[in-house]
């Protein structure tokens, strides 16, 4: 993708977002807010929505005027897999608990990132997940999410 196309795309997303939020603010929920105050709760967001639309238009204009260079190539497969496993971690930690999510994540993540020493991957994953779980739970007393099967884990 060229920079110009990327600008047109991002500018369009910004405008769409601005318009969507303006429509949201047209709902009845916002109609009676801050009556008698002059500058109610909808005052500042409306300014922002206007600014969204203006900057979006300027970005599109910039993209149309200048095609620019090709964007730097990336490893699309790796980034897709990494975002996927990170999403699985962030969603699963509330249901499976910290230890049962973090340990398998580290095993997979290090492999995906290109680290190939299998034994070391297992050792690092185990030590790091256990030590961070102990440190936060028992030293700093930040209760991390737990699994439905155990009290602390």
């Amino acid at each position: 993708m060229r920079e110009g196309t990327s600008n047109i795309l991002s500018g369009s997303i910004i405008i769409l977002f601005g318009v969507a939020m303006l429509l949201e603010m047209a709902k009845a929920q916002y109609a009676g807010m801050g009556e008698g105050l002059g500058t109610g709760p909808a005052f500042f967001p409306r300014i922002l929505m206007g600014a969204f639309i203006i900057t979006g238009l300027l970005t599109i204009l910039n993209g149309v005027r200048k095609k620019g260079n090709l964007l730097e190539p990336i490893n699309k497969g790796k980034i897709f897999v990494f975002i996927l496993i990170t999403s699985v971690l962030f969603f699963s930690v509330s249901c499976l608990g910290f230890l049962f999510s973090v340990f398998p994540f580290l095993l997979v993540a290090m492999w995906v990132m290109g680290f190939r020493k299998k034994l070391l991957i297992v050792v690092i994953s185990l030590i790091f997940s256990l030590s961070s779980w102990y440190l936060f739970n028992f030293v700093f007393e930040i209760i991390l999410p737990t699994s439905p099967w155990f009290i602390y884990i």
Partner: protein
Amino acid sequence: MEHILQGLDAVLNFKCIMIIAAGVLYGIIIGALPGLGTILGIIILLPVTYSMEMVPSVALVLAVYCSAMYGGSIAAVLINTPGTPAAAATGMDGYPMTVRGKSDYALGWVTLSSIFGGLFSTCVLLLAAPQIASVALKFGPVETFALICLAMTCIITVSQGSVVKGISSGIIGLFLATVGGDPITGDMRFDFGYFPLTGGINLIAVLMGMFALSEVFVQAAHIKKGQDKTQIKAKSGMRIAPLSEWLKRKVTLIKAAVIGTFIGALPGTGSSLAVFVSYAEAKRAGAFREKLGTGEPEGLIASETANNAVCGGALIPTLALGIPGDAEAAVIMSALIIQGVQPGVRLLVDNPDIIYTAFISLAVINICMLFIAYLTSFAWTKVLSVPRSVLFSLVTIFALVGSYGVRGNPFDMLVALFAGILGFFMKRGGYSVIPLVIGLVLGPMFELSMRQSLIITDGNFIKLLVGHPIAVFIFVLVFFFLFGPFFLAWRTKRKDELSVGK
């Protein structure tokens, strides 16, 4: 002078210095671990202070306060995971230095700048605390609004590449700050009927996503086929740049210390505002302004000096007026109340020795910080000797814990995840994520002070300017910050054209 000597006598003894050293070490660790932060660090220690005498307990709390501020920058510099919002600015120049293999110098700049900021504000406190307190009281909503506008100019100056994209990014940040309860009426905005959004978007979660997770995704996107054995070129410990390098940046150093001390003294502002105002000023008038944001030590000086100067400044309204400037100051105030000290206007008159003891403690804390920071720097930089593939996998876990730890809310982890994905695509599209963070940090204060100002003046902008000379002065500065660079560029271009014509 008598009170200063009393303070020296109370603080300079073996027991107190050991307590300060322990507090500094603990504070640095707490600050460097993402998700803990200054407030939690002090709160964890509060029960320990119950059984202590007044001077050591105050010294301990202040030691944690100052050193956690500094510690937040270590993670920002080494792994681009700022522990505090103010440290986000430090990461802008610190992390690029680390990537270039200059982590030792980056830590040196950060440490000495922090200590200079801390000592400068302490000296100012010792000499002029009552006077600063009286000026600070003149800052109402209009003046605060003007000051935040000044900090907002930073959005334009830190926008690398396209100013329009930088502004777009800043507006996204300002928008995210409006999610949740309205600051004046409490009405819910942009919650879309989804309960977790009523509490607003957590700033730390966004920081973890925008800086740490998006950086992990960028690293993943650039992995080539085959085994990864690459490491960030780690330099062990800390190195101090030669004096000549410091002298080249002395103006920024002094300006940042003054800005930090003064903004710290203003109730309800906090270190983030000071850091961004200072950074904007360095970007406008610094000796190396063109290089800021690319790994230039002047950026570290601007952010770190202001950040730690706030520690001293924030004690002025807290102790002398009984008004805690920010959440951290409020926790410190509660620690003092536990010890039977009631901060307020009478404290300066009735018990000035307590105030001066606190100030002397600050000076000792900063000196202690230099030694402990130097000794611990070897351990911190060891982190970078870990292979990149392992390091960034672990950073993902730090981001997870960091986003969850502040409120214990699983929703914040999802916020961090979405912020990380958004940050990755923003970076890919040439949008800087820093203006977004600035918008989100300053957004609530910006909206509140703007609307309060308009309510005070019945929505009349002229009234807003006429009755507030301090605000007018700051607005003039804002105008100069925004349009000065364009005018200077135009003048230079014209001069060049004229000389070519001749």
